[in-house]
């Protein structure tokens, strides 16, 4: 085909005058922005590791970090879609609090009366009710924004106050505990982790999926005669992807159960207590699995479904989207409903982790969520953003916080640092975008 040879020739001509580094990035199609963020995170990690005298980069701390990130990371995936369409959601922390409180009352007080204590269906009934409630609240916000034309900033600012107040009224401010034992698995801990063997299986499945998707996309491009990545780049990407996944699994499997819990387990299962202590690995925590799964589903929604395409088109040019015949108002409603649902997932993770539903749950989470999305490259001007970037942003934010806790920095100072980092990160991003033009 004349077209393809022309392109190939054109690319070769262009790459001849490029440095090897540039050629490498062009061939692998790696997002340099995302790579920059990974680099920044590694610097933060190594910095804290050195400052804390070797406490940061341990299996235990990294495992905890992953669990602590899960809740905000889940909400950040939805916040990307909200911000991409030039909206904002300030109410996610309050929705988390309200839905968490309702789920707490449901499983600790209402369902035991109906189904009996510790009934196996308690967790799923609770979770489904929470998802439905979250979606309902989100849809309500969306309808007010899209059909009554009230700016999302105001609607969700109102939501922030309303749902926080409503949380108090559910139990008149009383904390609800404990949670259902199955429900609690969503919060992590020794019980809420899948163990070494299952973790390796998950890791291997992920590796197979990475390789399969690379092969599939190459086949598709070949079928239609589009330019393809050089074969070495495909191998390189597969290798790096698999190494990252398996490395993460190895770290999770390197973190053992605490001695007293392992001893209890050994006694209960009639295992003789060995000399050097029993090594039972945590493996990947369930909340982390949930967050990763949600990240994959949301990436799929954002890039492979018509809804996701509309979200980005709407963010890029609302008028064009409308003129193209997209039902833009309904797209907005669906985005906010989805956001509400993700708040419910985050509420489940956070109440399960705390083993209680409290009045203050999720306070300030809206700010961490927005910060995660923005640090992750979501532009407040609309139109651009990635789910993976936002999740990475959540990890960066959480790394900063845990690192400072590890160093014993007071919480007022922590906030000052987080605030300054947010502003600096967005400034750097602005500089990057201006240069990219």
């Amino acid at each position: 085909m004349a077209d393809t040879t022309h392109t190939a020739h054109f690319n070769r001509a262009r790459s001849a005058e490029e440095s090897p580094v540039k050629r490498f990035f062009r061939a692998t199609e790696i997002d340099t922005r995302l790579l920059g963020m990974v680099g920044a995170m590694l610097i933060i990690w190594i910095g804290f590791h050195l400052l804390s005298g070797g406490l940061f980069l341990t299996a235990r701390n990294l495992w905890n970090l992953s669990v602590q990130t899960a809740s905000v990371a889940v909400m950040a995936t939805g916040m990307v879609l909200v911000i991409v369409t030039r909206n904002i959601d300030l109410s996610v922390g309050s929705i988390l609090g309200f839905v968490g409180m309702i789920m707490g009352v449901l499983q600790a007080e209402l369902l035991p009366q109906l189904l009996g204590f510790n009934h196996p269906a308690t967790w799923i009934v609770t979770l489904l009710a929470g998802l439905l409630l979250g979606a309902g609240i989100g849809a309500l916000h969306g309808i007010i924004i899209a059909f009554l034309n009230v700016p999302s900033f105001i609607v969700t600012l109102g939501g922030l106050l309303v749902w926080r107040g409503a949380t108090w009224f559910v139990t008149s401010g009383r904390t609800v505990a404990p949670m259902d034992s199955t429900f609690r698995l969503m919060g992590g801990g020794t019980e809420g982790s899948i163990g070494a063997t299952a973790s390796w299986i998950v890791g291997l499945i992920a590796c197979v999926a990475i390789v399969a998707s690379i092969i599939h996309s190459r086949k598709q491009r070949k079928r239609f005669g589009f330019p393809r990545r050089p074969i070495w780049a495909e191998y390189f990407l597969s290798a790096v992807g698999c190494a990252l996944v398996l490395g993460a699994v190895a770290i999770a499997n390197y973190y053992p159960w605490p001695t007293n819990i392992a001893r209890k387990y050994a006694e209960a299962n009639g295992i003789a207590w060995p000399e050097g202590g029993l090594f039972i690995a945590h493996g990947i925590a369930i909340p982390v699995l949930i967050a990763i799964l949600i990240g994959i589903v949301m990436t799929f929604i954002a890039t492979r479904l018509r809804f996701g395409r509309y979200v980005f088109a709407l963010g890029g040019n609302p008028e064009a989207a409308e003129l193209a015949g997209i039902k833009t108002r309904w797209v907005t409603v669906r985005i906010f409903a989805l956001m509400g649902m993700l708040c419910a997932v985050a509420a489940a993770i956070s109440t399960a982790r705390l083993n209680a539903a409290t009045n203050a749950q999720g306070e300030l989470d809206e700010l961490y969520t927005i910060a995660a999305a923005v640090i992750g490259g979501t532009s407040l001007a609309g139109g651009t953003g990635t789910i993976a970037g936002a999740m990475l942003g959540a990890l960066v934010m959480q790394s900063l916080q845990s690192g400072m806790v590890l160093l014993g920095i007071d919480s007022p100072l922590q906030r000052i640092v987080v605030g300054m980092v947010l502003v600096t990160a967005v400034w750097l991003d602005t500089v990057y975008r201006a240069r990219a033009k």
Partner: protein
Amino acid sequence: MTEQRTPLVEMRNISISFGGIHAVDNASVDLYPGEVVALLGHNGAGKSTLIKILSGAYKRDAGEILINGEAADINNPRDAKKYGIETIYQTLAVADNVDAAANLYLGRELRTPWGTLDDVAMEAKAREVMGRLNPNFQRFKEPVKALSGGQRQSVAIARAILFNARILIMDEPTAALGPQETAQVGELIKQLKREGIGIFLISHDIHDVFDLADRVSVMKNGQVVGHARTEDVTKDEVLGMIIMGKVPAKAIPGPGAMQMA
């Protein structure tokens, strides 16, 4: 013209007002298959508003639209597309953060049997259509933002013809283009005409469209000054219609024609 034929589009006595201002007042225009009608007038004469009623972007207050002689119910852009009406807006109306293929199929994406976007098929079709319109176009992977004015224009035109439009509306199609690209668009219009597509060209600059059009309809202050076949009138006479509302002898006067003493 064979006036006995059924017009492809007939807009009868259309009115619309915004906050008490009659943007379009009792305007009637028509369009036959394979014909190019230029809709001329100053900025604010109401030509864009009139045509946005046809493309579904605005809802008319009064009047009726007939497509092939039958009353058409057009309330939004989706309805208009159902009647085969495609519009290329002055503002180009492309989502400039997504790539060319995504723009071509915006609102009508191709999907795989599993309901996911079939990006590869869309890109293949985009390469085919764009290859016909603008063979030098190669930047399929980049967001439309990165393209030149002419390239963006060809994306907008490709989107309109991709779905077998019968009626094409072009609002200031060459305003953003250089001379070479303008000539390209002219060629394209002739090609589409041969395929029997009816085209409305909207412009405030008579020189852009006079040679391409079969007929002109002139608007002033929201009213139709008159219609004329381009072979019957000179550019100066049409300018007189645009500026003064003065209707030459061989033109058909409309409600907005200057009252002769």
